[in-house]
C-alpha cells in the first residue's frame, strides 16, 4: 500500500520563482493494485515516481508506504522496500559485473554481510529465476551485463527489481527505449511478475492501449495534478479514444490532436 499526501515538489530555476512541478498531489494505491500513470510530457509523472523513491525531496506533503512514513528517509533506505525500473536500460544494473553478480546483488535488500554472495545453491536458484525471462540468459550467467542487448538488460533489471518482492514497484516508461518486439516482451514479463508476486505497481507510460491493458486503474496527470482517475467497471468500458476524450475534458481544452499523449 502506498499513500501520497498533498505532495508538492518544486525545482529552482535560474532567477525568479521556483517551478512547482507537483502541486499538492494526493494518491492512494491499495496493496496489490496496478496503476497506469499517463499524461503529456512535463506533466510531472517522473517527478512523482522520483518523489516516492526519494530521488527528489518534497517541499511539503508526505509519502507513506505500508503504513510507514518515509518522507524523510534517504533514497537508499527507501529502496529496501521499493523496486524501480527506469527508462534507461543502463540505469539499473552494473554493466561491468556478471549477470550472476547483478542478480545476487539484487536478491536481497538492505545491509550487506560478509558471506559469500554466490554459493552453488544460490547460483542454481538465480539461474532458475533468470530462465523465467525466456531469453536464454541462464546460460550466460558469467558474462558481463554490458554484453546484453537493451531489451535483455531491461528484462534483467525488471527481474532484479521484483526479486526481493518490494512493497511497491515503480516503473517509469521502462519499455520506451526498446524496439516494439522487446517492448511487448518486457511488458508481458511485467504483467506476469506483478501477478506472480502480487505486487503493488505504479507504471508510467505514454502507450494508451498498454495503460488500459496492464492495469486495473488509470490515473491521468496534467501540470502537476491528477486530473482523472478511473478504475473498475468504468475503466473496463474504456477504449483508447475514450481516454483521449477524458484527457481533453480534464485539461479543459479542445486541441484537435494530442500528439504528446498519443505517442
Amino acid at each position, binding site marked *: 500500500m502506498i499513500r501520497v499526501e498533498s505532495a508538492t515538489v518544486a525545482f529552482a530555476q535560474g532567477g525568479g520563482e521556483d517551478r512547482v512541478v507537483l502541486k499538492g498531489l494526493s494518491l492512494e494505491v491499495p496493496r496489490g493494485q496496478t496503476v497506469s500513470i499517463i499524461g503529456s510530457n512535463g506533466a510531472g509523472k517522473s517527478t512523482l515516481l522520483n518523489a516516492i523513491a526519494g530521488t527528489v525531496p518534497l517541499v511539503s506533503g508526505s509519502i507513506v508506504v505500508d503504513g510507514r512514513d518515509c518522507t524523510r528517509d534517504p533514497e537508499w533506505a527507501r529502496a529496501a522496500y521499493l523496486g524501480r525500473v527506469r527508462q534507461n536500460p543502463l540505469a539499473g544494473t552494473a554493466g*561491468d*559485473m556478471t549477470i550472476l553478480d547483478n542478480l545476487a546483488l539484487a536478491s536481497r535488500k538492505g545491509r*550487506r554481510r560478509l558471506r559469500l554472495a554466490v554459493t552453488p545453491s544460490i547460483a542454481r536458484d538465480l539461474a532458475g529465476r533468470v530462465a523465467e525471462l525466456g531469453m536464454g540468459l541462464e546460460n550466460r550467467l558469467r558474462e558481463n551485463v554490458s554484453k546484453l542487448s537493451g531489451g535483455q538488460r531491461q528484462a534483467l533489471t525488471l527481474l532484479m527489481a521484483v526479486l526481493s518482492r518490494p512493497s511497491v514497484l515503480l516503473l517509469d516508461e521502462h519499455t520506451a527505449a526498446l524496439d516494439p518486439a522487446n517492448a511487448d516482451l518486457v511488458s508481458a514479463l511485467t504483467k506476469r511478475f506483478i501477478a506472480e508476486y502480487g505486487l503493488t505497481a505504479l507504471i508510467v507510460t505514454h502507450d494508451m492501449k498498454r495503460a488500459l491493458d496492464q492495469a486495473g486503474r488509470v490515473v491521468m496527470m496534467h501540470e502537476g495534478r491528477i486530473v482523472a482517475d478511473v478504475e473498475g467497471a468504468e475503466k473496463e468500458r474504456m477504449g483508447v479514444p475514450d481516454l483521449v476524450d477524458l484527457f481533453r475534458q480534464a485539461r479543459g481544452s479542445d486541441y484537435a490532436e494530442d500528439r504528446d499523449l498519443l505517442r
Partner: protein
Amino acid sequence: MIQGILVEGLVYGILALGVFISFRILDFADLSVEGSFPAGAAAAAAIVTAAARAEGGAAWFAAAAPFLAVAAGFAAGGLAGFATSLVHHKLKVPPLLAGIVTMTGFYSINLRVLGGRPNLPLIKNNPLLDGARSWLGALAPPDLALLAAALLSALAVAGILDLFFHTEKGIAMGALGDNEASVIQVGVNPASLRTLGIVLANGLAGLSGALAAAYQGFADVNFGAGVVAAGLASVMLGELAIKSHYIGVQIFRVLFGSILFRGLMYAARSWGYLAGITPNDLRLLTALLIVGAVAVSKYAIKRTKPSRRGGKA
C-alpha cells in the same frame, strides 16, 4: 638482485592493491595514499622503537611488537582513508581535493608520530625483519627467508581480498564504482560502503608502508612521495600483461604488475646510464610508463574490446 626486485615488488604490491581498490573498484581518484603509506611506516616504526625502549615486565610488548607494528600500519593508513572519506562525504569535496587535504595534513601527523624527526632508523632494532628471518629461516634458506615472508604477506592479502570481493559486501562495492544507482537500488548506503572501501584501500597502503619500513630499515616522512604514480603504473602494467574480467585474476595481476614495475625501475637504475638515464629520471620514466600504458590499452580497446573494467584508465 632478482630477489630484491621480487621483495620490493611484493611489498609495494600491497600498496598497489590499495590503489587498485580506490582507482579501479571504487572509481575514486584517491591521493591520500601519499599520506597513508608513510603513516603506516611511521606508526610501525614508532611501535617497534617504543617496544625496544620499554623496560621491565614488557617482554610481551617486545614479543608482540612485529604484529602490533603491522596492525598499527594498517590502522594508521585506514585512519588517513577515513579522514579522506569524511572530508569527501560530509563536505562534498571532490575525491582529488579530499585526498590532497589528507596527504597534506598527514605529513605533519607523520612527523609527530616519528617523534619530530623526518626519519626513524630501524637498523639496530627491526623485529619484523628479524622475525621473518627466524620464523621462516627453518623452512627456507636464510637468504630466501625475506622473499618467502614477502610472498606470504602479499599472497595472504591478495587471497583475503579475492575472498572479500566474492562476499555480499564485496560485490556491492564492485557495483558501487560501476554504477552507484544500482547499489542505492538494493537498499545500501553508498556513502558508508565507499567509506569502507577507502579505509580498506588506505589500510593496505599503510600495511605496505609498515612492511616497506622494515625492509628498508627506516621510516621516513617522504616515503609517500610518488607512491600513487608507482601504484598506478603497477596496476596498469598488470592490466597490460594479463587481460581478464575475473576479480581474482585482476587482484593477483596487480602483484604481478608491481613486480614488473620494480623490475623496470631496477633496469633503468642499473643500465639506464647506457641511454643517459640517471636516477633523477625515474619519476619521468614512471610518468611515461603510465602514459604509455594508457595509450596502449586505449589502442587495444579499439581493436579487441576487452571488458571495460580491464581497459578504462
